[in-house]
């Protein structure tokens, strides 16, 4: 029997766990019952819709153009989410789109270029999903950190500018701190994998009946993919923001 074939009844039964979460909310008077129920229903609807849509891209005889269209939508939506969550400026929308595209190009380029995976809808869409999904939080974080630093660390940055440093050099320590803050959680997650937590891709494969050794190999490539994508996205985003924070006369702009 395929362990992952849980059927609709199984899905419904797992919904009991949502009832547990709602129960906790009621018990501790968190006022989150409606939010939990809405989140659970929304996730169900989104995943069902994605499941249907994926049918058109993951079959071997589906044209690759569908997979790339899917990718385009994912990138646009990720850029819009970053814009909405981090800072509602057109510059953030454009920069984050460039950052996600660059990250996908680098990481998927390595995986497909070295033949780790065969390029097909079945590999392109999920791997790009992992790249973007895992980069999103770090990109929002680094964006918020850099804009906050432009105000909070103004004295430090202008102190360096006043000594004749270029904007790039004056901003380097601030940029480094923001990048470290964005990357360290992913590095810690990578270090802890297998000890504290079993990652989702591996769990999914094992539940679906894949040999654990094969699942581990896939998971390792996915972990490296995530780390590489987070590093690439945050680096591109932060360098782009750093350029936008200064005028051509190497003056730190005032951020509202």
């Amino acid at each position, binding site marked *: 029997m395929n362990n992952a074939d849980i059927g609709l009844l199984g899905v419904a039964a797992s919904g009991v766990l949502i009832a547990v979460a709602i129960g906790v909310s009621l018990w501790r008077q968190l006022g989150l019952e409606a939010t939990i129920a809405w989140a659970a229903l929304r996730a169900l609807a989104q995943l069902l819709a994605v499941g249907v849509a994926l049918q058109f891209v993951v079959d071997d005889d589906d044209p690759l153009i569908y997979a790339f269209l899917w990718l385009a939508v994912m990138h646009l939506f990720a850029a819009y989410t970053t814009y909405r969550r981090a800072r509602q400026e057109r510059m953030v929308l454009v920069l984050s789109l460039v950052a996600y595209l660059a990250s996908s190009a680098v990481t998927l380029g390595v995986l497909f270029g070295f033949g780790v995976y065969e390029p097909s809808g079945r590999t392109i869409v999920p791997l790009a999903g992992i790249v973007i999904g895992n980069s999103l939080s770090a990109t929002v974080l680094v964006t918020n950190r850099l804009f906050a630093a432009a105000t909070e660390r103004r*004295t*430090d940055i*202008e*102190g*360096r*500018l*006043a*000594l*004749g*440093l*270029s904007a790039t050099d004056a901003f380097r*320590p601030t940029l480094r701190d923001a990048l470290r803050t964005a990357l360290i959680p992913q590095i810690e997650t990578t270090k802890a994998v297998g000890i504290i937590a079993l990652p989702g891709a591996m769990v999914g494969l094992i539940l679906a009946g894949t040999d654990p050794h094969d699942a581990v190999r896939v998971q390792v490539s996915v972990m490296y993919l995530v780390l590489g994508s987070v590093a690439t996205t945050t680096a591109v985003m932060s360098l782009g923001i750093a350029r936008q924070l200064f*005028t051509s*006369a*190497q*003056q*730190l702009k005032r951020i509202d």
Partner: protein
Amino acid sequence: MGVSAGPADQPILRDISLSIPVEGILAVAGPSGAGKSTLVRLLNRLDDPVAGTVALEGSDLRDWDPATLRRHVGMVFQKAPVFAGTVHDNLCVADPDVTDERARHVLEHVALPPELLDRPADRLSGGEAQRMSIARALLTRPKVLLADEPTAALDGEARRAVEDLGREIADGGVPIVWITHDTDQLRRLADHVLLLADGQLLAFGHLSELDEHPDPLVRSLIGADAPGSAGEGSS
């Protein structure tokens, strides 16, 4: 047309025209919000005016490379920015190639013991940090030094030490534009005085000239009528 600066729709400095002599200590004073810091920030292009031209030695600042200009026109802030690392690391920000000998020499110049070179900069007292920041600025060999209320965060003794250092630097040939809201300090230090009020030039001249100024606000801002001031006839 004079210089205006600050937000375009609500400039802090409004249509100011003046030529600042490059000698000794020029004290810039005026009530809060008069535009003192805004004026000084124009002089090393941390900000640009929204109208008018700022020139150094007859040359529009916009024609200067900003980094080169800022090494010519050093700046000391009200609260000295202390960068990560040791005092030596802080000096290296101004001059990455600074030798140990020059680093010790510049510390001695600001009356700090050379042993401080290896001390983490965040362990310096407020007065020591300010003197370190002056040493850092001097490492770029500036032709002019801007000082934006450099003693505002310091206590009496440290304040006087920084004032003495300022006087020594100015007498050594590096003129200082020194913002102050302390009339006693102004009277101790100023060779020339520039007074701003409400974003406009209120008065400019030698302290002795301004002591006789007909406008009571001018005399008040320079402490001319205070007991013991030169304006009251005592030294």
